[in-house]
């Protein structure tokens, strides 16, 4: 139905547990890194590095894991925190990143 990957990808999420924050019909990012990580996942999947649906399942899982956390240990809700975890997980699963490679980059 949607001829553009960007539209297909966003449309899959609408009304689902992984639906992204939006305001007045537009995607809503409160910080630049949120915009970057959102765009990275789309660009990487569009280029064929992983199936969009596989990323979505990890995102839904990551959101559910946050919801299961006991109140005591729970961090405040941050959609893009969950999104970042899911992106790293799918990249490791598809072998785009080696496990621990991002940590190494962070420490360099």
């Amino acid at each position: 139905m949607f001829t553009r990957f960007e539209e297909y990808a966003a449309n899959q999420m609408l009304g689902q547990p992984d639906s992204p924050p939006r305001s007045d019909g537009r995607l809503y990012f409160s910080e630049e890194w949120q915009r970057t990580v959102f765009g990275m996942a789309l660009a990487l999947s569009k280029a064929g590095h992983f199936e969009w649906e596989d990323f979505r399942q990890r995102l839904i899982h990551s959101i559910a894991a946050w919801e299961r956390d006991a109140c005591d240990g729970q961090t405040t809700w941050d959609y893009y925190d969950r999104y970042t975890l899911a992106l790293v997980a799918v990249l490791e699963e598809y072998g785009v990143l080696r496990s621990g490679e991002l940590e190494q980059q962070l420490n360099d």
Partner: protein
Amino acid sequence: MSELFAYEDDREKGNAARVRALEALLIKKGVLGSDSVDTVLRHFETVAGPFNGARIVARAWTDPAYKQRLLDDTPKAIAELGFPLGMDGAEGEHMKAVANTADTHNLIICTLCSCYPWPVLGLPPYWYKDPVFRARGVREPRAVLREFGVPIAQEKEVKVWDSSAQIRWFVIPERPRHTEHLDEAALAALVTPEAMMGVALVSAPAAA
């Protein structure tokens, strides 16, 4: 309290650093182009979004003949505005405009939101797909509209349209009063996605 905020601030900085490192790593590995992120986001920021619908509405407000064409043959009239490829195609081809008038208010609901024409109307708000909103929109549209801050006078008719795969409806709201001095771009800036669903009215800018 201050410790709690300090923690959140750390997490924010941590995520920002993590995303920056991830982007740098993927670019270094040749997996991600240096402008890939901006290219993808440009689609949402300038190609597909509620600014397209707002342009259509503003044109209809300033050009009565265009408005008539929009009501008679919506896809053809949308195509006149020369949107980027796809905005008047895949999704736009089934679109149908309805105009609010002094006698009629239109409300759009959608049973299947996969049919929502967001490249023109913008990404729908979370409540739009809520079964309660959909059910009440049909059963008691006036009550729902009142809750949205849009009370409709008894003598005015309320029409409810259900978007489907066959037809995706959108509302041409009434042009607000005292906007005669505004040009098309200034008018488009007043049009919100909610106004194009019929759950809001368009107001003139405060200074007008």
